[in-house]
């Protein structure tokens, strides 16, 4: 069985600045993987590259073992890779409903889109209450819920989450992680989480990559990272 998404020796950056130097990561179907690393390690850049937002200067992306040429966001989305970008990826000028509908524009089965919207309204009842409200007027937590639901509307096989806990109250973060774990368990969606909140992420992840200034410093099972005090102290700082 090949990985849903595999990155081989990715090189990417901004202008003349190379941020990722030959980074290789992979996510198997229905797996939960977390990428940990300090500020500036290249975590967000990695997710930008994986989602097709950032053009690669080297290496390649493989979906189901097949190399992806011309990786653009719409191409990656069509192949089942969806990103929840950092800082709430909602369209702030559109209503909650429109955001969810927009998440499904790549889908062919228009009839089932309504069913999916109802499902996410059950998962996040607060979004249902605010369905006609403009996304920009939602609270930070609600916007992040909407960003997750919107990204899930394309029925991805792999959900990339960039710092989903950033700037949110601990209760809300806890709630979001419970939802993510459920999504993984019930829908079989693989997750690739980039997190600074290492403790929570390690609870639901099975594998870990440590990113250090643009390179994979270490990787292994989440268990070994949880249990190894020296790794915790050195990399995670708690």
């Amino acid at each position, binding site marked *: 069985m090949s990985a849903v998404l595999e990155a081989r020796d990715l090189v990417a950056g901004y202008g003349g600045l190379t941020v990722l130097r030959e980074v290789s990561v992979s996510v198997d179907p229905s797996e939960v993987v977390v990428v940990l690393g300090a500020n500036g390690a290249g975590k967000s850049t990695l997710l930008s590259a994986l*989602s097709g937002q950032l053009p690669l200067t080297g290496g390649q992306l493989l979906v189901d073992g097949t190399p992806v040429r011309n990786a653009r*966001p719409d191409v990656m*989305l069509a192949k089942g890779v969806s990103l929840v970008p950092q800082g709430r990826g909602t*369209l702030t*000028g*559109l209503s909650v409903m*429109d955001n969810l509908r*927009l998440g499904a*524009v790549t889908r062919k089965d228009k009839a089932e889109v309504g069913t999916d919207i109802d499902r996410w309204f059950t998962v996040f009842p607060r979004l249902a209450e605010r369905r006609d409200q403009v996304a920009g007027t939602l609270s930070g937590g609600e916007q992040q819920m909407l960003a997750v639901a919107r990204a899930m509307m*394309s029925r991805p096989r792999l959900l990339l989450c960039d710092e989903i806990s950033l700037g949110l109250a601990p209760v809300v973060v806890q709630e979001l992680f419970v939802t993510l774990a459920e999504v993984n368990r019930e829908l079989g969606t693989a997750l690739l989480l980039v997190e600074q909140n290492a403790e929570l992420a390690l609870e639901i992840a099975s594998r870990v990559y440590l990113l250090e200034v643009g390179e994979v410093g270490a990787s292994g099972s989440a268990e070994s990272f949880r249990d190894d005090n020296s790794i915790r102290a050195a990399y995670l700082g708690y």
Partner: protein
Amino acid sequence: MDIFLSRLFAGTTSGAVYVLIALCLVMVFRSSSTINFAQGEFALFTSYVTWWLAGKGVNIWLAVVPAILIGFLMGALAERWLVRPVRKRDETAVLIVGLALFTGLNGLSGWIWGSDEKPFPRMLPTGEDTYIDIAGARLHYDTILIVAIMAAVVAGLTLFFNKTSIGLQMRAVATNPDSAALCGVRVGRVLTLSWGMSAAVGALAGPLLVPLVPPGQLGLSSMFPVLIFATAAALLGGLDSIKGAVVGGLALGIGLAMVNGYVTFLGGSMSLTSALVVIVAVLLVKPTGLFGARRLERV
């Protein structure tokens, strides 16, 4: 009272014309954050096409149809092959391309059809007794019809933006192109379509407005004042708002008719100046306009 009403009707007529062209500017600005200075010249070129076909004996209402298709293609091709290649480099370059298109299309129209003024067949009925008498003022049928056509275009666009998937994608690109791309929207295709639709609406508006705007004939400079008025109207309403284009256009048309009518020492020739005053005032006082969300940052 009857003089006031006459001025109100005249202002509404020109206001409806400004609304139609302002809508074109708004459609482009929403998706690309640029004012397309060539918008008027797109409409000029397609008006010549309509005029030429009408001269061949085609019914004017039928002659507009191919002009709309040509307009759509011109807008779409201009976005895809002229605007997009330079967009990556520089925002100013996009404006320069707009100006180049402006002069280029004007020159092309003159080269093909000559620079003399063309008597333009009317799409809307006109004549001695084509009006309704309201309190002594004449409400002409063409006023009623152009307002009705404007209302139909606005209603059609509103339905399109709110009820169709591609309309939703256009609104998404207008809000945030990067987030829209992450939702799987093919941003480039949406931009091409927006430019095409905008020029298509312009192609419908052109033949309607030529007989209504002095001197009532089609000439190479027919669209320039209309573009200035429409820009003022779009800015007044907020460049990214359809509602704004409607309110801004009608307010400008009626406002100028009143100013010209009552502030007689200015004289009619000051309309264009008044429109420019509106542009400067909006940019200084409220750059987002009445209903807009985004301000114009570069002109």
